[in-house]
Every structure is written in C-alpha cells, then in structure tokens.
C-alpha cells in the first residue's frame, strides 16, 4: 500500500458507480419504456417496479456475468509480476466505456455499454499484457453470443406472437380464448423465472437446493401463479355476452354450424340421386342459418373484444416487463461491477483474489448505482420512450419482452455479457415479421452492426490511451 492507494480505491469505486449510474439512467428504459408506451404501466409504477427488480436482478443474479468480466476475459497470471497494472487496466476500461458512452449519447449514436466495456478490457489486455493475456476462446464465445442473442430474441418473439395470434386473435371468441390461455402463459413465465433465476440467485443468501427441489419449487410457484391469474382473469367477460342480448348467438354455435355444413358437404359429394337432393336442401338450410348468425356477428363488438384481450395482456405485460427488468439488472450490472470488483480485489487482497466469487457488496453497489441512475435521470428516458412508442400494444409488448427477457436470462445464466438493447430489438423485429406491427424500420439492424464494428475497437483504443496516464500518476 502506497500513499496513493486510498485515492485509487476511491477513484475505482466512483468510476464503477458512475458506470452503474449510466446503465440505470439510459438502459433501464428499454425494459420499461415499452410497457409505459403500451399503457400497461404508469410511469410511477414502472419506475418503482424497475428499481426493485433491477436491484434484485443485479444482487441475486448478477454474479455470473460479473465473474466473466472480472476474470473470464483477461488471464490474471500474466500480470503476476505487476498486479497493479491490471488494476489500472480495469480502471482504464471503466473510464473508457464511460467516456465513450457519454460522447455517443451526446451525438445520439446507438452504442452498447456491453460492447464498449468488453472492447476496452480486451484492448487493454492485448496491448499491455500481450496476445496471450486474453482468453480468446472465451472472447469468441462472447462475440458469438452478441450475434446469437438478437437472433434468439427474434425467433422467440416471432413464435410467441404467432402462438398468441393463432390461439387468441384467430379464435372465434378472443376474450374467452385469452382467459383460457392466460394461466398457461403465467405458468410458463413463472416456472422459467423460478427455474433459471430465483433459486440460482439464492446462493448469494447461502440457501442451497438440489436440482429436484429447484424443479419442484419452480413448478409449484408456476402453478400458484397460474391459479392466481386464473381467478383474476375469470372476472373478465367476453364483450359478445354484454353487447348481444340474443341468447341463441354464441361463437360456439357458429363453430358447430360450420362443422355441420362441412360434414353435410362431404355427404353430398359421396351420395347420388334423391339422397343427394335432400342433403343439398339441408346444406342450403344450414347456410341460411349461418348467414343470419353472421349478421349479428358483424356488429361492433369485435372491436371491443380485441380491446379486452389487450387489457388482459396489459396484466401479462407487467409480468414480462418485470422479467425484463430483472434480466437487465442481472446482465448489465456486470459492465460496472466486473472490472470494479477485479480491481478492488487486487488492490486490497492481492492477485489470487481475482478468481474468487464476485463479492456481494459489489453487486449491491452496482444495483444501488442502477437504481440511483434510474431515480435521477432514467425515469425521464422512460417517459420519453413511453410517449414515442405507441405502436406496441400490450400483446405485442408481451411477446417482444418475453422473448428478449428469456434470451437475456439464458445468456446471464451462461455468464455471457450481451447487449440487452440489441436483444430487445431482435425480439421486436420478430414480432414485426409475424405481422404484428404496422411498420418496422429495418435500418436499425444497420445500427446494431455499427455498434459491433465501431464500438469494440473504439473502446479498446480509448482504454489504452487512458491506461498510460493512470500508470504515470499512480506509479507501477
């Protein structure tokens, strides 16, 4: 310990905290803005939910990706002679990413925090420590996860929305179909959350379960969620029952008549003579009954039905937004906390500590940084996004968020630092390809490519430029 060390420690903590603040200020809006835009959540509720879930995500589940950032990219053994160099490197990486994000947001460029910090760490490690200082295989995995995550988000978004529209929008009675279908969706979401996230995260609280117990508990949680949602949703009645006083009409009747007509047509095709004539008369009769029902069908209640379906999805979207906020906290906290905890560990306890688990206090610091960023600036961004995104109705928002969140959760579990924004973009595009949106701008895919091609090298160059002054000031 030299005289300068406390100053260095404070500088590291401040820079790391600033990164966390930045994530809270700019990126949380991706998780919550869509829900505010669709009207599923008010701004106030969205901010409170986001604060709670981002913190829990970061605190309970942030360790996997943070561990990758802390010790999965740079081989610390290379620096065993001068461990302080690694401290400077991590600080330089944090500062580089912070500066680059500031510049980019000033000009309004679409960049990803994850890409700039990974670029910075790799750049510093490769230049200062040499090529062998980097676990290239791991870096390869990370880069492929950047390509795969928007794709997987897109595929999930596409299929989830397709299921929703085939099962609910195309049903003869969409509200009833939605009411029937909701418990399954809730069960699925809660079980996935339980299985991958919650019980995994309890390790931080020193609660251990085996796989069987985890599975059982998740399914139980899912069932409880499904049952609760079943009773909540049951109260919603289809618009057709309110608007149409004619007791004879119900979509089921229309469906049965349609079946009867088809069967009669089969009989008609297979018979001859008098029989065919009588069956033909029957078909005419059925068709005229169908026509009379169709007319009642045509009234304005169809619009009301879809509105009610969207209201049900409003509740579901709150759930998917929570999942998204949790996943975002879990993945993005690493951008601030990974380098920070590596630097602090070396500075206070020595090089061997880099391989130790990410300390709980660091995750709490990151979570707090995100929440403060959200409280001081992020809510404004959520408001802006919410006002501008009105195209995403709750059903579309649910499909996109659920697809993106599942992908991010999976990546977080595997310790892959991915861009949550790009994954969400992929998921929204997926919903668009499933004929869910009025107009999707495909040029955003170009933005994603630019983010890959420009941000990573620039983060690296900036980190190297910042590294040398830091070393000059604090000494090697």
């Amino acid at each position: 310990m030299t005289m300068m060390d406390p100053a260095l420690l404070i500088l590291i903590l401040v820079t790391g905290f600033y990164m966390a603040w930045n994530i809270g200020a700019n990126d949380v809006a991706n998780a919550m803005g869509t829900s505010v835009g669709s009207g599923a959540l008010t701004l106030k509720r969205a901010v409170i939910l986001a604060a709670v879930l981002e913190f829990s995500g970061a605190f309970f589940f942030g360790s996997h990706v943070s561990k990758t950032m802390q010790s999965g990219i740079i081989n610390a053994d290379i620096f065993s002679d001068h461990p302080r160099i690694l401290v400077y490197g991590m600080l330089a990486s944090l500062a580089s990413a912070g500066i680059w994000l500031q510049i980019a947001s000033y000009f309004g460029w679409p960049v990803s925090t994850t890409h700039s910090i990974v670029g910075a760490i790799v750049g510093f490690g490769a230049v200062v420590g040499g090529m062998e200082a980097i676990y290239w295989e791991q870096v390869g995995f990370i880069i492929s996860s950047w390509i795969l995550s928007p794709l997987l988000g897109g595929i999930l978004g596409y299929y989830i929305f397709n299921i929703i529209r085939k099962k609910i929008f195309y049903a003869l009675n969409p509200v009833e179909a939605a009411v029937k279908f909701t418990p399954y969706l809730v069960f699925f979401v809660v079980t996935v959350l339980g299985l991958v996230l919650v019980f995994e995260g309890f390790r931080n609280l020193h609660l251990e379960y085996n796989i069987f117990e985890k599975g059982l508990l998740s399914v139980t949680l899912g069932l409880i969620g499904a049952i609760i949602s079943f009773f909540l949703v049951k109260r919603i009645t289809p618009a057709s029952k309110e608007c149409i006083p004619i007791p004879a009409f119900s979509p089921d009747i229309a469906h049965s008549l349609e079946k009867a007509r088809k069967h009669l047509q089969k009989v008609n095709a297979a018979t001859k003579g008098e029989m065919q004539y009588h069956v033909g008369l029957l078909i005419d009769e059925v068709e005229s009954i169908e026509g009379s029902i169709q007319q009642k069908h045509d009234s304005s209640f169809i619009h009301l039905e879809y509105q009610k379906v969207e209201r049900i999805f409003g509740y579901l979207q709150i759930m998917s937004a929570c999942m998204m906020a949790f996943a975002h906290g879990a993945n993005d906290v690493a951008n601030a906390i990974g380098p920070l905890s590596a630097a602090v560990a070396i500075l206070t306890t020595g090089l061997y500590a880099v391989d130790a688990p990410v300390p709980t206090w660091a995750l709490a610091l990151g979570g707090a940084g995100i929440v403060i960023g959200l409280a001081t600036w992020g809510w404004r961004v959520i408001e802006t996004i919410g006002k501008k995104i009105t195209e995403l109705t709750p059903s579309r928002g649910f499909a996109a968020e659920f697809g993106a969140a599942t992908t991010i959760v999976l990546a977080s579990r595997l310790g892959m630092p991915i861009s949550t924004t790009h994954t969400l973009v992929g998921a929204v595009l997926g919903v668009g390809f499933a004929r869910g949106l009025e107009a999707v701008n495909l040029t955003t895919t170009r933005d994603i490519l630019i983010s890959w091609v420009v941000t990573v090298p620039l983060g690296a160059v900036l980190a190297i430029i910042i590294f040398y002054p830091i070393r000059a000031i604090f000494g090697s």
Partner: protein
Amino acid sequence: MRTILNLFGRSPFAPLLSHMECVAKCVHYLFELFDALEHKNDELIEKICEKISSTEHEADLIKNDIRGHLPKSLFLPIDRSNLLEILSLQDSIADNVEDIAVIVSLKPLELLPAFKNEFKMFLQKNIDTFDEALLIVKELHDLVESSFGGMEAAKVRGMVDEVAFREHEADIIQRQLLKCVFKAEDQLNYITFHQWQKVFESLSAISNLSENLAYRIRRTLEIK
C-alpha cells in the same frame, strides 16, 4: 434508447385512410354535381367542379407522400406491392370523379326525363358500392390489430362480398339505363350522347375499382 425508438417506422395505414377519405369527399360531390345539373345551375356546376379538382389534388399530395415514405427498409405486415396497388386504385377512383366533372362542365348537359330515374339509381348504386369499400379501408386499423385473421377478417370478408354484390347490381342497372338512353335516340344529338356515354363509363368505373380495391384488401387476410 434511440435504437428502440428508430425501430418503429412511419406507418402508411393512417395516411392510406386519410387518402381514401379525401377520395370519398370527391365521390360524394357527385350527388351535388348531378343535382345542380338537373336544375341546370351552370354556375354551381362550375363551382363543384373546382372543388372536386382541388380535393383530387389534395388526395394526390397524400398519395405522393405515402409513396415517398415507403423505403425498402420498411417492413410492413402486408405486401408492399399490395399496398401500392390499393393506393393506386383509390387514386384512380378520384381520377374518374374528376373526369366526370370535366365532361359535365365542358358543355351544358340535360338530364332527360327518359332516363332520369334510371340514372339516379345508377349513380346511387355506384356510390353505395364505393361507400362499402370505404368502410373496408376503415377496418384496416382493426385488421392490423387482430393481425389479419380471426373474426375481424371474417367480418371484412363479408364486407368484400357485399361490395361485389353491389357492383353486380350496378352493372344490372347500367344495362337498363343504357336501354332507356338508346330508346331516347331522337332526343339526343351525337355530342350529348357521347358526353353521357363517357359519364356512364366513369361512373361504372367507380364501382368496378371499388370492387378491385375490396379484393386487394381481401388478399391480405389470413383465412382459407
């Protein structure tokens, strides 16, 4: 944050509807136009023709705006060529109305008692057909909402059948009308006959185009 915002392009569906509403304004001037013609109010005819022409121009501006904002990078829930065809069909309807206005204003025209009633029925039926097509275009937003299937699609399919039926009725009335016109041979000189013939053609084009428009929208639906 910006990436997410940029993701949502400018939707052409709302402008498409406002274009159709502009066209509808044009079409509905026809009632006033032929009313003025019946009362031989040449001044009023002139005025209505000007209104039709300026409304048609307004529709053209919306049309160009829609066409100008359909870059290849915009992904739509319906086929781009289908959308453009819908737009150009709507545009042709307005063009036909303008044609009628021009023909009528060229030379004072008399609505002969020999075919007056048939003509009024014919006019009404053509505009009815158009109005039903207008209702379908108004359903486009709900179609997007329901992602082009289910009950909403079934409803639109029914409306398309209705348009087709009205167009058929208009054809039948046109035949009766022509019979009456040919019977009144001695009351018409060649120029007037030609003028009326042009008016009938453009009027029946309105219902034909409305039917095509309805079938274009029918094509976007997801029902077997």
